[in-house]
């Protein structure tokens, strides 16, 4: 197992290099001149323009630009944005917001999604099952920003339970955006759990567990759930990586200064260093959580061995 993890960790290096190059190339290929756009209506003098272009290596060919970036990276320098602010500062400042938001969302996803899925899966065709099926269908079909606005209006404005936007209220500020961010995945988790549980309840080993005289709660909660969790854990793990990366809409609606917003803004401004730095972190999260999921597989299902 240790060797497997070491091998997987080594494999992340080429993946990160490849991913960062692809992103670098894509930003490079964007049409338009970021420096001119930066200057706005008042044109810069040719000398100032050249100075900025030179500082960010914008006149070099792609590979030279990338090479210079990587050299800086090896020395721990992620570069700066056009305002002269180090990229690493942007990341360290914004990462905690994104992580908190993602963790809040994943907690909702696990608690509500699993509970709904289990209630529905245990008795297929019951009132509860239909309720879960209908409500998850509704949630899946509503766009996230609509859900966000509705949540702001209902719980923020009318009921006043949670702040409408921003980070003014500590932990409570994350509850509404977390719930909205979780809503889509929550519906998937509920459905996946329901299907997986219902399928496993038909297995022979469940009949054996009943024949052993075990309590119904043990038959379902222990024997069936452990087997049903395999696809659900895969989904939640991959989704956690997703949540870390892709909360642009939610962060915008709730005005949260997270990494999603940062990467979106810097794509618009064609700030290559910022985009590459942040997206490479996203890629790293993906690799990390995928590894965690693969390890969890072996923990849940002893038939899976990595040797």
């Amino acid at each position, binding site marked *: 197992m240790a060797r497997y993890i070491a091998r997987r960790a080594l494999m992340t290096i080429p993946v990160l290099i490849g991913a960062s190059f692809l992103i670098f190339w894509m930003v490079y290929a964007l049409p338009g001149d970021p420096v001119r756009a930066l200057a706005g209506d008042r044109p810069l003098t040719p000398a100032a323009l050249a100075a900025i272009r030179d500082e960010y290596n914008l006149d070099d060919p792609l590979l030279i630009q990338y090479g210079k970036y990587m050299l800086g990276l090896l020395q721990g320098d992620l570069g700066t944005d056009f305002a002269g602010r180090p990229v690493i500062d942007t990341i360290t400042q914004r990462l905690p917001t994104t992580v908190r938001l993602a963790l809040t969302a994943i907690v909702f996803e696990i608690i509500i999604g699993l509970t709904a899925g289990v209630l529905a899966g245990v008795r297929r065709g019951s009132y509860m099952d239909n309720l879960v099926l209908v409500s998850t269908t509704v949630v899946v079909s509503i766009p996230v920003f609509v859900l966000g606005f509705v949540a702001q209006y209902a719980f923020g404005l009318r009921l006043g339970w949670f702040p409408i936007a921003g980070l003014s209220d500590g932990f409570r500020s994350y509850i509404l955006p977390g719930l909205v961010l979780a809503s889509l995945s929550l519906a998937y988790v509920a459905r996946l759990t329901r299907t997986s549980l219902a399928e496993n309840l038909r*297995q*022979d*080993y469940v*009949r*054996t*567990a*009943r*024949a*052993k*005289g*075990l*309590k119904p709660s*043990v038959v379902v909660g222990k*024997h069936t759930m*452990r*087997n049903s969790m395999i696809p659900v854990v895969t989904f939640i793990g991959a989704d956690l990586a997703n949540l870390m990366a892709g909360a642009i809409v939610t962060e915008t609606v709730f005005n949260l200064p997270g990494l999603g917003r940062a990467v979106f803004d810097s794509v618009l401004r064609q700030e290559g260093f910022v985009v590459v730095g942040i997206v490479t972190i996203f890629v790293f999260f993906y690799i990390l959580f995928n590894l965690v999921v693969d390890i969890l597989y072996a923990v*849940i*299902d*002893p*038939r899976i061995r990595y040797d």
Partner: protein
Amino acid sequence: MSETLTTPQFAGSVGVPVLEVDDLHVEFRTTYGTVSAVNGITYSVNKGETLAILGESGSGKSVSVQAVMGILDTPPGFITSGSIRFHGEDILKMSSHKQRILRGPGIAMVFQDALSSLNPVFSVGHQIGEMHRAHQGASRREAKAKAIELMERVGIPAARERVNDYPHQFSGGMRQRVMIAMALALDPEILIADEPTTALDVTVQAQIMELLSDLQADTGMGLILITHDLGVVNEVADRVAVMYAGKIVESGTIDEVFTSPTHPYTAGLMSSVPQAESKGTRLNPITGQPPNLAAIPAGCSFHPRCPHARVGSAAAPGRDCAVEVPDLREVRPGRKSGCHYSEELYGE
């Protein structure tokens, strides 16, 4: 239909049967209609006795014991009438809690396919020891010690080293031994073995059957053996009940039923077994298919396939095979047959 199958010699020697199943009916209510899987079966099992329930797939033999075990899938399966008495007390009238704690120490079950019947994600030691933990409140350590002891008892080599292994790490025969160890954990009074050897190699089949009969001799438990394998029945059973379309069509001691059947279905089964001395000749199967349990033929359910069926004007009064349902009745001491014409066909 309230008589039991107990033969006089057993009834005399061991007293009240441990398990009595009386006129049990089970049906499955599906969206496509009602399937009558078990249609009034009656039998009993004494301490130390082996009853074989013999039948083709779809004859209701597994469903009947699942009903006894209380593990029918409800819905769609429902016990519609009858009683299942354990030491005289009707299990069907017990509270669900009492039913549950009976499973294990009272009645235990060994299933057909040990690979799918054991939980793949728990070690075999855990699954065996779970019986002691759930029913006797044993500690983890005690449960593990008991599991090792049981694994040794059912002949699993290096039990101490293998107790933490998982089902997929065992061979088919060893897995079935694990199932047996699990079923035996609480010294059940009745052990139900539902086709325990069907999924195994022939050589391993013999070992498992030998193990079951040795364990039975040690513990004095009653054994219900569900099988379609005439050879298995012949080796270990004391009595046999032959099932067809959810009913018992013939019962008696193993030697008598095998040497002189009193029902055309049993006779057909016996003559369809390949024999070494008749090598080169054609097999002699029963023609036709077992009936669809959603549409069991009227009268005797076997009559469409029966070479001796008497229908219409050929039938004796009140014994038209296509109209009148034959009762299971005593045709000789200790022998019961569900054929209208048993006496005519097979003598008194």
